[in-house]
């Protein structure tokens, strides 16, 4: 199947129009000795129906969340996607456009991103936000790089309560850019305050925590804030489960400098975890340091001075700053930002709070039912939002087999990221799980126990 419209005859006519005889004439700049001498070793072309059959079968080899019940969260959350979101987000004028370099014919995308920036500010309680970043993990890195500044040297203090994947990514960048990373342990599921206090020093550029943290526990951000703000340190909070912002104090209410995180679960399909939707929001004063794109409101140069939207503050961007760059992001996640924007518009002021309450109530119901089972204990005592850790009577690997037989996908086995927690599982219960689903999980767990 080819998407080249011109036929061989038309192409020949074009060549002749230029006084050439064959396409070969145009390839002469490529030296013979590096020309491929045979076709690429790839499977032959498929027609559209054959390709659909192939991929449909491949997709059917995956157990989709439509055909199973899942209690996985751990950084990627299953929230409802209203029908209007995908209908609108998939409008081809959005999908097939490039970065809006020509604002006069790109007002739609620009305005949608401006609305996204506003909504991110609203839900995080921060002053401003950018147009998106790759994902939550790289958003944490961007915050660290912002804090470190153009030199890129210094120290980042990060809680072990931050998503383990995020911390791995930070370490990778630290290796390349040459800064250091200090991890603060958790105690009883939350960041250890004495250890945090001890970790922050003169070289510390930023303190990064996650709220709720990877264990689902709600950090005592009021107590953390003064410790994180010792000296010139920036206080960074990562949000992986944005539904929590409907009920928990947002970063803007506890003096956070930079709020980062992940918004994919708002309006975008999970898609094996990506494309994701990283965000960064900040206090006003960091505006000119923000990485990535920004859309600003302005007016026409002439005419009626109508309101319009443009990419702005582009001098911050990598293609100008080169050696002083603190970020190299260019392509971002605009289309997902459009999805999140429409999602939040459908939720609205009331709905955003209700979403949080549904998650909170359902997770706590599940928590009560599970911890009532003999052998299943709450791992931590503190408050949580829609995720919680259960100490299980058998190893998580053993549990998985039960789940498989019961045709459900259980929680996340924490042993994979936290040594010594082989008998701990992180369960997530969002608003998409019904009471029926939860009761079924409890029944399955009961059988494990028996």
């Amino acid at each position, binding site marked *: 199947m080819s998407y080249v419209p011109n036929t061989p005859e038309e192409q020949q006519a074009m060549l002749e129009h230029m006084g050439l005889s064959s396409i070969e004439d145009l390839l002469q700049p490529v030296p013979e000795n590096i020309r491929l001498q045979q076709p690429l070793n790839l499977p032959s072309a498929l027609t559209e129906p054959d*390709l659909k059959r192939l991929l449909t079968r491949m997709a059917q080899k995956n157990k989709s969340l439509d055909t199973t019940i*899942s209690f996985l969260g751990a950084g990627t959350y299953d929230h409802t996607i209203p029908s209007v979101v995908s209908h609108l987000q998939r409008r081809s004028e959005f999908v097939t456009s490039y970065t809006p370099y020509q604002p006069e014919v790109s007002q739609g995308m620009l305005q949608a991103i401006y609305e996204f920036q506003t909504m991110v500010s609203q839900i995080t309680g921060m002053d401003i936000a950018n147009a998106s970043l790759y994902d939550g993990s790289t958003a944490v890195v961007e915050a660290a790089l912002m804090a470190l500044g153009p030199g890129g040297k210094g120290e980042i203090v990060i809680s072990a309560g931050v998503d383990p994947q995020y911390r791995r990514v930070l370490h990778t960048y630290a290796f390349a850019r040459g800064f250091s990373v200090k991890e603060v342990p958790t105690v009883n599921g939350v960041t250890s305050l004495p250890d945090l206090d001890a970790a922050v020093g003169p070289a510390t550029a930023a303190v990064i925590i996650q709220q709720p943290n990877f264990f689902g526990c709600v950090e005592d951000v009021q107590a953390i804030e003064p410790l994180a703000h010792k000296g010139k340190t920036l206080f960074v909070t990562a949000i992986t489960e944005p539904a929590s912002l409907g009920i928990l104090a947002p970063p803007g209410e506890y003096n956070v400098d930079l709020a980062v995180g992940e918004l994919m679960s708002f309006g975008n399909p999970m898609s094996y975890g990506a494309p994701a939707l990283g965000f960064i929001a900040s206090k006003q004063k960091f505006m000119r340091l923000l990485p990535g794109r920004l859309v600003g409101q302005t007016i026409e140069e002439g005419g009626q001075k109508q309101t319009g939207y443009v990419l*702005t503050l582009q001098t911050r961007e990598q293609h100008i700053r080169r050696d002083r760059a603190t970020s190299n992001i*260019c392509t971002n996640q605009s289309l*997902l930002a459009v999805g999140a924007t429409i999602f939040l518009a459908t939720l609205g002021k009331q709905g955003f709070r209700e979403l949080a309450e549904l998650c909170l109530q*359902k997770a706590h119901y599940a928590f009560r039912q599970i911890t009532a089972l003999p052998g299943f204990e709450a791992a931590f005592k503190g408050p949580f939002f829609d995720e919680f850790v259960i100490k299980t009577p058998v190893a998580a690997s053993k549990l998985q087999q039960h789940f498989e037989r019961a045709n459900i996908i259980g929680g996340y086995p924490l042993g994979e990221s936290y040594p010594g927690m082989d008998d701990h599982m992180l369960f997530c219960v969002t608003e998409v799980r019904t009471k029926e689903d939860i009761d079924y999980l409890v029944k399955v767990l009961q059988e494990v126990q028996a």
Partner: protein
Amino acid sequence: SVEKLIFEKGAPGRRTATLSALDVPAEPVENLLPGALLREQPAPLPEVSEIEVVRHYTHLSQRNFGVDTGFYPLGSCTMKYNPKINEDMAGLPGFAHIHPLQPDTTVQGALQLIYELEQYLAEISGMNRVTLQPSAGAHGELTGLMLIKAYHQSRGEGERHLVLIPDNAHGTNPASATLAGYKAVEIKTDASTGGVDMDHLRTLLASYAPQIAAIMLTNPNTLGLFDANIVEIARLVHEAGGQLYYDGANANAVLGITRPGDMGFDVVHFNLHKTCSTPHGGGGPGAGPIGVNAHLVPFLPGPLPARNSKGEYYWADAGPQSIGKVRANKGNFGVLVRAYTYIRSNGPDGLRHVSESAILNANYLKHELASDYEIAYPLTCQHEFVATAQRQKDESGVTATDVAKRLLDFGMYAPTVYFPLIVHEAMMIEPTETETRETLDAFVGAMRQIAEESRSDPEVVKTAPHTTVIGRLDQALAARKPNLRWTPGQETTH
């Protein structure tokens, strides 16, 4: 015309019903969460009904130009047609609704696709192994440089810290070098060939050989010119102990014709949203897989897909020398499904036909425009070329921006302007292979009319666009008094 912001629509209490009802016994919130941790002010999100949401974002879409709307000759961006089947395949529930932490046994189809796509991209690039983890081209660049850094360190050559980058390179290259803890050094362009100035390269190598970590090139480069010295460049840089990084933004010119691996590159990134037809979504998401030669494989980020003797797929941890992860989860899977679909739909002959046709279309446009516009380097180009508005500027003060804006009035998007930086009044034009001759001719017609207008009535060009929903916008005001979010009381002017 102006479309109000969503925040200016709706009314208190209006809503779109999105959520299910609570079906479990509820506890008072104060029993579950300490008061000090609760949100004080509700997020002031819009309060709008479903029909308002639908009309608002439908209107916004109608105020946006995409490839489905018309010709999009944006140089170095490869705005080719985005096949609809790609969207449908990525939307299959078995691909769209799977969690990244599901057990491998429950995602065998996804793993197979990833495993095979890696193989295809390795073959296309002529590299040994590929990681699909990077999220975009720039992310791929950075990842590639990290691998190079880890490689040099493993050989005790950690002191190498310079990256050679041509003065016509994509802007991300030097930024990526900086982010990798490197220092960028500019290489001049040869004024006659448009390729790397070989003398300058030799001089730099002679001066800095022990400090050189890598050279970053795209070939064909941003002038659309294939550097015939590439093999010699590779030899020289390798001899100096440096690694060769291939910026794949221009890979749409080489599919099935030549391969970065065969040219001598050590690392290659792909922009799947360019070369492999996945839509750009108004700025993203993209995907920037990188392919590497064997000596760099141990440093790749993990995990990597693997297949056992029973034909089962699984995620294998990267080895001890791995740089770690460059993002959470396994890469932009939704984009990968689309790219996989594209490669399978084209096959080997189809991919070569893609590049040949892209090259033909670009040369055809260059040929037709040469009568009215300067061509920066009037040589046989590959998938793109750089014309300029220098003649128009000299004659009547019409700039590349003016030409770009005027093109919008013809229902076409504009070329990339003022890039590459080394060409004055540059207009970088990449038609791609998916345009018909009629469309190319219509573009030529518009460009000729604009050239004529520049002579006869330059004001019409300088004040363009005239038919768009809004006129030229005040960029200076936007930067001087940045307004990055709506606040209550703020109103749009009509």
